[in-house]
């Protein structure tokens, strides 16, 4: 290979979907850490979708409608699907194509206070739903996860863009019938792409990809709220804070990652399905890779971008690029590199969006196993499993639309490896002579299959999260480290507004969240409106009346309604 010209390190994630039980612990802990603030009530940096299902926001995968990601122009060059720079500038004041609140969901709360305050009566009081947007009574008709566990699939299932696609192309139709049920969960965060279309969409240059670890962030000072990034992101993982008027997104928990800790979603994952590690890539090769003509070759192009951390040329280039040695050690131990490249079982989500996403997924074998088990077959037997993977076309085609731009052979190969691992290891566990023909049939050695099993089934905390800490000598460049204690009005002298970045001087997020949480836990009353500078924290609001500050003041209408 030719020597990489601009080598960079990227912190990336793998999620093993067979282990996801859809408990949403990741979503809840993420929300508590990052978006439990006014203006972000509807925002889930991390969410978990049931597939098949429409996802959150609804039908975000329908790029014909939402115009996210990149496409190739007639000359084969990359172009934002939402239009080039000129078109963007021309239309900058027009409302961009982006999901409305109804496409996410209208956040609500409950009249919890009634449970405490209701006068003595002869029937139970009840907390009825109240819209967090209008403050009025509401009926809950959609949520951040409405179609959980295929709820309502009979009525809404066909609206899943992948179901639509598979139905239009495959001989077998996806049917929403009891006997043909298959489902799995898909946890999603920002992809921290190598070729981020959000960043390219921003007219203010407010979105940046950190050179040291590839985390994509929004500079809250530079963001002007054009919202082009929301259109630009095909995963719809940038959100508009309607209080601050700025864009916000998953931060890959950079304050934690900088000190070697996994993200909150990974740390709290009950199924231990997340892996975090470093990969190395040549930044100068990204554009060409993303412009690979055939959608179905994009997965391979992404793999080709990943540099071998054991290659002397790569090591030399990394040294020249100033990548610290401990990052190189981490890159060699990286579970992400192992699962995506060495074993080839982790796949990128929607590579056809051409953003080179950096959150990878091990596709689930469980839809196949479940169907087999229900039919009374031995779901651990290689022959049965291989046969089923070939025969059960629907789950495979669905997975291919998610992870390989429709290339079923790649998905089949991964599922066969997973099946081989199950089958081979069952033999070992039962004390039988290990059957070398099983790894052979998927092109692996017994040792490699065993190592893959160790990484996928046994890996402990330190094997799942191989995260080199940021270097103290870089502290001045980093958001959190080093400076977090010595800025104006530091911790304990909390003077910044409750909405953090949006309200005054930038406050390191970790400090902001810590102080806000402590304030809330130790306060003896609900957050007062004084403290909120006349604004209302909707998440704390109990739905009673409309407190002053809920709506912008109008001269002729007195704010607040007397109950």
């Amino acid at each position, binding site marked *: 290979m030719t020597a990489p010209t601009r080598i960079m390190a990227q912190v990336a994630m793998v999620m093993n979907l067979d282990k996801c039980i859809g408990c949403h612990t990741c979503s809840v802990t993420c929300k508590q850490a990052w978006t439990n603030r006014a203006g972000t009530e509807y925002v889930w940096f991390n969410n978990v979708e049931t597939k098949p299902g429409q996802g959150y926001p609804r039908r975000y995968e329908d790029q014909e409608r939402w115009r996210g990601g990149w496409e190739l122009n007639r000359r084969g060059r990359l172009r934002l699907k939402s239009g080039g720079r000129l078109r963007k500038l021309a239309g900058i004041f027009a409302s961009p194509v982006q999901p409305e609140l109804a496409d996410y969901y209208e956040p609500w709360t409950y009249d919890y206070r009634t449970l405490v305050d209701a006068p003595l009566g002869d029937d139970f009081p009840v907390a009825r739903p109240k819209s967090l947007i209008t403050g009025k009574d509401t009926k809950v008709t959609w949520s951040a996860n409405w179609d959980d566990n295929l*709820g309502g699939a009979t009525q809404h299932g066909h609206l899943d863009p992948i179901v639509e696609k598979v139905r239009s192309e495959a001989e077998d139709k996806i049917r929403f019938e009891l006997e043909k049920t298959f489902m799995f969960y898909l946890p999603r965060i920002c992809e921290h792409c190598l070729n981020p279309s959000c960043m390219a969409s921003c007219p203010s240059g407010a979105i940046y990809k950190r050179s040291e670890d590839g985390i994509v962030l929004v500079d809250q000072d530079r963001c002007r709220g054009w919202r082009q990034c929301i259109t630009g992101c095909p995963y719809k993982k940038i959100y508009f804070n309607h209080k601050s008027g700025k864009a916000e997104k998953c931060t890959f928990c950079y304050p934690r990652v900088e000190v070697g800790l996994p993200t909150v979603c990974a740390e709290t994952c009950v199924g231990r399905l997340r892996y975090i590690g470093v990969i190395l890539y040549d930044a100068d090769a990204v554009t060409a890779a993303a412009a690979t003509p055939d959608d179905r070759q994009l997965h391979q192009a992404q793999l080709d971008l990943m540099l071998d951390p054991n290659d002397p040329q790569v090591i030399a280039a990394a040294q020249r690029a100033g990548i610290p040695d401990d990052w190189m050690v981490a890159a060699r131990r990286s579970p992400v590199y192992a699962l995506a490249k060495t074993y080839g079982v982790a796949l990128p989500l929607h590579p056809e969006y051409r953003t080179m996403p950096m959150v990878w997924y091990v596709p689930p074998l469980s839809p196949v196993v479940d169907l087999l088990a229900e039919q009374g077959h031995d779901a651990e037997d290689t022959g049965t499993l291989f046969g089923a993977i070939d025969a059960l076309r629907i789950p495979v085609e669905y997975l291919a639309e998610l992870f390989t731009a429709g290339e079923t052979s790649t998905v089949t190969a991964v599922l066969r490896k997973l099946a081989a691992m199950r089958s081979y290891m069952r033999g070992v566990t039962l004390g039988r002579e290990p059957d070398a023909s099983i790894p052979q049939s998927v092109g692996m050695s017994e040792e490699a299959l065993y190592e893959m099993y160790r990484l996928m089934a046994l890996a402990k905390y330190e094997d799942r999260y191989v995260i080199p800490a940021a270097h103290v000598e870089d502290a001045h460049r980093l958001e959190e480290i080093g400076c977090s204690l010595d800025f104006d009005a530091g911790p304990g002298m909390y003077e910044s507004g409750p909405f953090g970045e949006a309200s005054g001087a930038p406050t390191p997020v970790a400090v902001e969240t810590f102080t806000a949480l402590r304030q809330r836990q130790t306060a003896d009353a609900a957050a007062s409106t004084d403290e909120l500078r006349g604004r209302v924290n909707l998440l704390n609001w109990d739905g009673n009346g409309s407190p002053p500050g809920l709506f912008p003041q109008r001269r002729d209408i007195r704010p607040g309604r007397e109950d």
Partner: protein
Amino acid sequence: MGTENPNAPRPSEVRWHDEAPEGKLDLLVSADFRMTSTTLLSDVVLPAATWYEKHDLSSTDMHPFVHAFTPAIDPPWQAKTDFELFHQLAQRFSAMAATHLGVRRDLVSVPMQHDTPGQTAQPAGRVTDWKGSGKPGVPGRNAPAFSVVERDYTAIADKLATIGPLADSAGFTVKNVTYRLEEQVQWLAARNGVMLGGAGDGRPAIDTDAKLAEAILAFSGTTNGELAVQGFRTLEKRVGRPLADLAEGSAEKRITFADTQRAPVPVITSPEWSGSETGGRRYAPFTVNIERLKPFHTLTGRMHFYLDHDWMSDLGEGLPTYRPPLDMHRLFGEPRVGPDGGAQVTVRYLTPHSKWSIHSEYQDNLLMLSLSRGGPTVWMSPADAEAIAVSDNDWVECVNANGVLVARAVVSHRMPAGVVYVHHAQERTIDVPKSEATGRRGGIHNSVTRLLVKPSHLIGGYGQLSYAFNYLGPTGNQRDMVATVRRRSQEVQY
């Protein structure tokens, strides 16, 4: 059954009330950290601390660890830990008892218990009823055992805060193995200190939650290797099989509360359970019975299916047998299962555990509600929904003779026709409107269910069918009911 079916036979030995008597509780006090269906009915609600605000222990046979709860913050406002609530109540109560209750002696009846002579008191499962038969009632044979208990109400708080002297003289008995605790009591006294004055004078202190946790760990073989070995030695003598080696490697291991606070600690194999953690194994029940031939606690000491109890024979259930679900139509006049061709469909009403709550806890959390349907739901099959013109998210009512549930429908092909799921303990505090059927607040999942007890559930004092706390009770047949689902007016009233 008698009330609903006038033709059902009436009992002859108790007075029959055509109208069931109604009464009112004098006082209901509850401690909770949420407003629940119970606290809403309470006269006094004591604000309780949550798991993150107190010291506690957690363990289960689902995994081989014991771990600590350690407060992340102090209980906010006036909230108190359960431990503190009980102690403060006891202290006030004991002070008042000086002039009100004093010392009393109560006659207490105790069922013939498992692992006691009571379990063989009725040989061959023949129940000799003393009532009306002219035969004598003998406590512990054909009547409960009785004993007189002295209750010093003025000493309740003192006793609650100390390990009593019976620990020294009688030890603790679990599954018929008595653990001698003299040394452990001394160890605990040195560790926790002793209380001075009052009824617990000089006894080891358990006056804080952390000290009580320490006592639990000190007195269990699973966390105190010395006791595990001691228990196995006792057991070896009884069953004649070598067992102590299961715990000998841990004889000197003692897990303290501080250990569990540092990290979850694997437990020691102990006769208190039937699994083996020896050598890092994971717990599975009855491992010691199968691999070490320790007899099962049954009539034969084996895995035991045939029950020769008279009542089982009378019911034709001496061997495990399939019993179809009760015909609720014939017995209780409920509609027949299936659609009626009109506005309602009668279904099997199942109440499985919920994905997002532990009983009623967590189910009212705003974040989790925002990640689901935001209130109580009924999972229905497309066929049943279609039969009564119900669309996804429509309001429906589930009705039977027991009560009414009002909830929104989740229509999914994951449900087979003829069955609905109403997940366990979705409380009526969140988004439950008034019912069309009753005009009152709709109920919870259990408003539509009831436990049906049959004579075999009442067998006691016979081998493995003897009572033991948390081990023997009626079956969970209330989890499979029949109810009628109707689409209701979509304009709900709260």
